Structure formats: C-alpha cells, structure tokens
C-alpha cells in the first residue's frame, strides 16, 4: 500500500512565514526612516526589496537583522519573535545577512575570513589553546566553500586585495558558512561590472531552494533573474508588493521611477539598466 503524501498546502495560517515584519516603524530624531512596514515572506521565497535611494531599504534590513531596534513593531523568524534579539543571537537562529558598506575583514586573509564565519555558531570560537589551523573539519570546509565560488586559489590573499566581485562573493560565502535559513542580501551587485553581475546572478541562482532569500537591489535585470516577488518602498513606507510582473505594471511604481530609469514594461524583454545610483 503506497500512501501518497498529500501535497503540502502552505496556507499562511498553517506554517509561519520564514520572516515576518509586523508594522515596523523606525524614527530618528524627527525623521521617519521606516513607516509601518509589514511583510510576510514564505519559506523558500526569492524576495526583493526595491525603491529609490533613501527609501529606507537598508534601515529596514537593519531592523530585520537586529542592528537597529524598531521604534515599534515586531520581527519574527519562523514564528519566533526576535524583535528584542541582537544580531549575534539572530545569526544563531538562522538569520544571515550581507552588508552593503561594511564588507569583509579586509586585513585578514580569505581563509581567516572563512574560519571566523565557520566558528561563529560554535563554542569553539571561545577556545583559547588549540590553534585555529588545527581544526581539520573547519579548514576543509573553508577550502570547500572557497572552491565552490572559485576562490580556492585566493585563500592566502588578504581580503582587501581581492577584486570587487571576489569581495562580494566572499561576503556571501561568509553568510552562507553559517548555514542560514533566511539570508538578507544588501545590494549584492552594487558597483560590479556587467561580467561580475552575471557571476553574482549565477551564484544567487545556485543557492539552495530551502534558503529564503531577501535581497535589496537596484538592478532590475538582476532582480528579474533572481527574485520572484518584491516589495517597493518609498520614503519608508510600503508602496506595493507582489510578483515582479505585477510591480512592473503598477502605475505607482512607474511614477516613482520616472526621472530615473523606468522598469522595463515588457516581461522577459531586454530591460533598461535599473536605477542603480
């Protein structure tokens, strides 16, 4: 007797979303950076956060990852309230993130960068007596990680001496080393050459399906290739949320981007360069 397992019905009421934001507000001395943003991002989603500069995207990320406390509102990871938790605690719960500005450990080698990441969720990070080079599992995993993104030959190079694209790759590798369940990527393609953008896109595509990906990006092409749905922010508030197609056809979004390059209205067609200022 073969019992066929029923196709999993992921109704929002049944399983908690991978990441949820509930009426997040963040004010700074009179300036409202994030205004009443609510999001429910399901497991395995490929979600984008877009909007003009100053729209509050990175602030929202900081609220999600714990670098900032919200003025009000809640953040939940797989149903667990993480609003009061600091970044290192969220990392232990499976939330990873990359940064747009503060990048990798520049004066440390690629191997040292990866080693730090690999010990991050282990008690071994407080170990005092055993040299870190004598952790064969970690060393092997570091080599594997590096190799998987083509950085195998760069293990001994100081991170600051890598190319832009390689630094970006290392940044993602560091986050991946923690085996996150949800990954926040802050403008992974910013400043990259067209060739490097293709590499990053392939990298993003190669990430496991169970990993929930949330990405801030300006590059519409990259978004179209890597992301299924997105939310558009403007002045800290959510303007519209939906599939990429819905967003591109939304009037409010068009208005928003007018003056900067408008999102390409033709689905699947060659797009104009996104508002990558």
């Amino acid at each position: 007797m073969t019992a066929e397992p029923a196709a999993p019905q992921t109704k929002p009421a049944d399983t908690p979303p991978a990441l949820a934001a509930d009426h997040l507000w963040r004010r700074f001395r009179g300036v409202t950076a994030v205004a009443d943003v609510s999001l429910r991002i399901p497991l395995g989603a490929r979600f984008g956060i877009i909007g003009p500069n100053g729209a509050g995207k990175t602030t929202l990320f900081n609220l999600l990852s714990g670098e900032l406390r919200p003025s009000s509102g809640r953040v939940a990871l797989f149903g667990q309230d993480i609003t009061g938790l600091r970044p290192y605690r969220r990392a232990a719960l499976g939330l990873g993130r990359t940064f747009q500005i503060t990048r990798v450990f520049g004066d440390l080698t690629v191997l040292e960068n990866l080693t730090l990441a690999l010990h991050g969720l282990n008690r071994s990070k407080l170990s005092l007596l055993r040299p870190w080079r004598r952790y064969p599992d970690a060393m092997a995993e570091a080599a594997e990680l590096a190799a998987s993104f083509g950085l195998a030959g760069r293990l001994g190079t100081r991170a600051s001496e890598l190319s832009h694209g390689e630094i970006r790759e290392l940044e993602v590798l560091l986050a991946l080393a923690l085996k996150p369940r949800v990954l926040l990527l802050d403008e992974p393609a910013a400043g990259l050459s067209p060739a490097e953008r293709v590499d990053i896109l392939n990298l993003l595509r190669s990430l496991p399906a169970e990993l929930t990906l949330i990405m801030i990006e300006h590059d519409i092409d990259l978004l179209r290739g890597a992301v299924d749905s997105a939310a558009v922010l403007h002045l800290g508030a959510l303007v519209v949320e939906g599939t990429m197609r819905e967003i591109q056809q939304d009037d409010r979004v068009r208005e928003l981007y007018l003056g900067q390059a408008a999102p390409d209205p033709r689905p699947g067609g060659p797009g104009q360069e996104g508002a990558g200022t």
Partner: protein
Amino acid sequence: MTAGGPPASAGATTPARPGRPAGRLTRLTLVILEQSRRLTGPVAGVAAAVVLVLILQGNGFASTLVEDALVYAIAAMALDFMAGYAGMVSLAQAGFLGVGAYAVAIAENHFLSPWAAVGIALAVVLGAGLALGIVAVRTKGVSFVIITLALGQVLYGLAFQWTGLSEGDNGITVASLPAIGSFDLSNPLTLRMTVLAVFAVTALLLVLFTRSPFGLSLRGIRSNEQRLAALGYRTSLHRYLAWVIAVFFAGVAGILYVFVQGLITPTTMAFSANGFLVVMVVLGGLGSIWGPAIGALVIVLFQQEASTYVTRWQTLMGLTLIAVVLFSPGGFWGLVRAAGRRRDALITRLRGGPAGENGPATTAGQASGAGQAGGPLALETAHPGTEPRQTP
C-alpha cells in the same frame, strides 16, 4: 621544500634577469634566503634564551636591567594581546600591575605569609579585572582609551590617597618572599630565573591564545566588529575576556615586580607608567607579542641609563613614539616583517618570477605576511600566523 638550486619547474631556469644564466652566486643566495626563512625564528629564539639566561646568572647591572625588563615585558605583552589584536589600547595596564603589587604588599603588611599574599593578589587582580571590565568594555576605540586613562588615574589616586591602606607616597616595602623547601625567592638568582620562567610561560600562552579561534575573533573585532557580530559572535563578551586576560597578566607582573624591587609606591602606577607600557607596545610592534617584549627592554634600558648618558630620555622617547607613529606604525616588529616580505619577494624573483611556488607554511613564530591597517583604528600591526601573501 627544495634545497639548493632552482626548482626544476618550467621556466625556473630562467632567472628574473633575462639574458643571464642562473649563476652559482644566485643559487647560493637563494639557498641562504630560503633557509633563513625557516631558521631565523627558532635560531633567534634559542639565541635570545641563551643570552637571557647567561645575563641573569650574573650579578651586575645587566642582570638587574634584564630582570626589570622581563617584569615589564609580561605586562606589555599582555597589553599587546588586548591592544594589538582586539584594538583595545588601555592606559590602565600599569594600574593593574600596581594592584597586583599593592595586594601582595598590603597582605604581607597584615602579617600574611608570602604565598598567601600571592594567592590573594591573584584573586584581587582577577576580581578587579572582572568588575572594572564591565565598565571598560562598554566603550570602544578612542573612548576606551579615555576611560582606561581615567581608570588608571583613579587607581593611582587610590594608591596615593588611601594612605591608611597604601601608606601613600611612602609606599610599602616587602621583605619576605615566597619559598618552598630549598626553592627560595629570597635568593636573587632563583628570583631571576623565576621571573624568566614566568615571562616565558606568559609569552608562550599569549602566542598560543593569538593563534586560537578566540585570538582570531579578536582580530575580527578589530577589523570589523559589526560584521563579526552578524556572524554569531557576542563581541562584547570577547572583548571582556581579552580585557580580563590582559589585566590578569599585568597583575602577575605586579606580583613579580614587588618581589624584585622590594618596594611598591604610587609612582609605579602614575600616568607616565601607563603611558610607558603603551609606548613599549607601539615601539615594539602592535600585534606581535614578542615585539613589546623588546620594547620593554629598550624603554627600561633608557630609563636606567637616564642619569648617566641621556638625562632627557623621556623627550627622546616621546619623539621616538611620534616618529614611529608617523613613519613606521608597525613598530620594530613591523620592520622585521617588512624585511621578511622583501626576502620573500627576492626569493620569488630569484626563483624566476611569478611561476614560483607558494611560500612555505608559517615558520615558528614568524610569518612573512604582515597584517595591514584595518578598521577605525588604522594603525598598522604585525600579526603572526597570517598566511604569506601569494604573488598573483
């Protein structure tokens, strides 16, 4: 690792200077350089150890000098662990040295045996470190320097003003030293050898710590603390632990200090003393552990030679510090590393250019790679244990 002669790999028979065959001189130079990369560290270490032991056997000026230097070196190396690796430059290290020294002295003043005094002093230093660390670690970077400066001054103030306990400016003399059976620290030679032993153990422990995952985490903190936190590290805890370790060893140095000198006065904890330790670390080389030991020797040498040759040695020291900060922020050890890098580059060139193989694994205590300025502190350091750079 190849010994003698250029490797047989393709292209290696053509040296970097086209048109000239690889002469015997080139091969000889190559051998010498490659062997030096492996051997300089251990040889220098052994030589230094032998010299130290020999000097300490004596009874004259040199042995006193080295003894004093070793005591300060313990505190300086520990300060480097905190400052050179975690970026926590403390101007209170001499304060904790004083705490250790005064604890011994006050305990003995209250008729406790020397061993009990040592035990109490260790406990007091640890307690002070744990308690004050909670406050100190709430600040970073320049603010940390400021708060530790204030802390150091307050500790000095206690020593100076709490005359009931510390006898104020007069200080406290310590007459009885620990002894077990025939092992008696009252014997100057035994004391000197003990100081050397404690120094060696401290140095080796600290070097070990820097190579551990914890040590790496400190470098990560110095490099990009926010990023490290996002990787799951509770960075404030790491900084706190680094602080406790560093001030504990300062206290150990203080205990030795009061046995060696026989006396502790507030001057040992004055601002200038705290500054000296920082100078030792910077001159010797932030982030090298061994460098500050050399820095300690140099400063102590100047201090003791002051009356005879260079009366205005503090001016000289101040100017030297400024010069080092301006021109060679990596200090003495930074120069050593730079020489090592040049040697590596020369080896690569003599081997025939970029096709040469990777550099060998780090030799004992001396890597050819150099740490570069990083993070908001942006003061160059020289970290052991870094992989040698790969030539592209």
